[in-house]
């Protein structure tokens, strides 16, 4: 017993919190990158998460594709869809009031979710865990399902790789420059519009990657993204809009906080993130890792 709670239950919720936190981290990271470069609040982020899961579902269950292949291919496919969407529609809204971007991406949510609901119905489609990752690991104090351990490692690795590319490579330096001063960056001969398209692709590709990872845990259904996306917005605001490090750390941390809240005061677990958001906005309006402007 620990804090009046059985150790097994505590560890179980902690693990669940870390798994959810890993999803939050990947999703809010993508959202933060997109906001940083495009200055657009990508309301469609949850829809791309769902699209990733459905792409994986269709490839694996209908065409019998291998899980590892799907884990790679589905995010790439969704990234291409995202880039096409940016190129055809989103780029017409740069420099306008952010509400236009919000409305356009929200309309994409309605189209995608509606389309999948017509085609597959609202109830979930099961997606089986890859054979290689079924089973459990006994850690002594708890039993950890192998697939969940894999999700944590895969999600956090993708965050780490993204962070490395942005903070430590010349491509990342161009991206940071384009975020800070797009007009000057273009004057140096850097193709900023192409960088913007790639950023959107990478951001929604990350969402799709999370979607594929989530497919065996949650049922694959058209609204699986919209229930997540509001929490993700809150996380990005808490971490500091556009902050890469903030999105990753806050995502993971709040997953854990949410998990533990479920254990100690479960009625509160779906509200806790928003309560923290209110507190953070009152004390540090730019977010935990955000830079104060001006």
């Amino acid at each position: 017993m620990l804090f009046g709670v059985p150790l097994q239950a505590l560890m179980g919720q902690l693990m669940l919190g870390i798994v959810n936190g890993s999803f939050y981290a990947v999703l809010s990271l993508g959202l933060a990158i997109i906001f940083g470069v495009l200055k657009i609040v990508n309301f469609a982020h949850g829809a791309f998460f769902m699209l990733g899961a459905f792409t994986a579902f269709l490839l694996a269950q209908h065409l019998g594709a291998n899980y590892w292949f799907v884990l790679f291919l589905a995010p790439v496919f969704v990234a291409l869809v995202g880039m096409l969407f940016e190129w055809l529609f989103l780029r017409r809204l740069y420099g306008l009031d952010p509400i236009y971007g919000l409305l356009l991406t929200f309309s994409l949510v309605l189209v995608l979710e509606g389309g999948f609901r017509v085609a597959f119905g609202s109830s979930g489609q099961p997606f089986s865990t890859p054979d290689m990752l079924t089973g459990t690991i006994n850690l002594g104090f708890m039993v950890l399902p192998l697939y969940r351990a894999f999700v944590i490692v895969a999600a956090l690795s993708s965050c780490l790789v993204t962070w490395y590319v942005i903070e430590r490579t010349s491509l990342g330096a161009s991206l940071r420059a384009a975020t800070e001063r797009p007009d000057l960056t273009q004057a140096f001969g850097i193709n900023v519009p192409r960088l913007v398209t790639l950023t959107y692709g990478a951001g929604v590709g990350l969402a799709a990657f999370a979607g594929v990872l989530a497919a065996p845990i949650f049922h694959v259904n058209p609204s699986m993204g919209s229930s997540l996306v509001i929490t993700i917005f809150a996380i990005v605001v808490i971490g500091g809009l556009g902050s890469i490090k903030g999105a990753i750390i806050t995502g993971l941390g709040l997953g854990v906080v949410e998990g533990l809240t479920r254990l100690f005061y479960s009625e509160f677990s779906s509200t806790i993130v928003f309560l923290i958001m209110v507190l953070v906005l009152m004390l540090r309006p730019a977010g935990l890792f955000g830079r104060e402007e001006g």
Partner: protein
Amino acid sequence: MPEAARDPIDEPLLAIQDLHAWYGESHVLHGIDITVPRGSVVTLLGRNGAGKSTTLKSIMGMVPQRRGSIRIQDTEIIDLPPYEIAPQGVAFCPEDRGIYATLDVKENLELPPRINRSGLSTDQVLDLFPNLRERLHSPGSKLSGGEQQMLAIGRILRTGANLLLLDEPTEGLAPSIVEQIGSTIARLKQQGYTILLVEQNLKFAMSVADYHYLIDHGRVVASYDRRTIQHHANDVLERLGV
């Protein structure tokens, strides 16, 4: 050394004709005509708000709306997307130096892609401005004004551009650093670079430039060479409102 050094000095490297520019509703440039001969240093003189910086920004495609003709060598660049202008052999150093706060000194230095092989290496830039070597991994925001200006100039020397657009490189700097910038510009000219300079400091402009254009209300109102500006220095000072 850039190829420019081998070419005759009076061939225009940059020719601007009837350039108009707008910021939203406001018409800022009203038909600017400027010629910059290859291998020369040319200054744009004028008061604040006369349209000097806007002229440089128009060349780089940083002004939302513009019309007229801007030719580098013989290529018309006014319709090119902004990121295709630098590869024509031009590099820009903005008035506020344009140092990125989220990039460290090395990243700032190596950000602009190289246009050709004639640019300086990172090491050569650091030899030119030794102060920067010690600050290589400091964020751009932590540099002094003088260091920022050195970084801004060093950064465009790496690209291999032979036409340099410098917007008030001496503004707000201590006299000793102004002198250093002056001798750097003289050395760059010797090496064959062509430089278009926006300047408010007439003494500095006269010491470095071959030709001068006086700009007022978005128009060229007078032009001088090294000799004629000596005779009109008082008029020019009056026009500059000094």
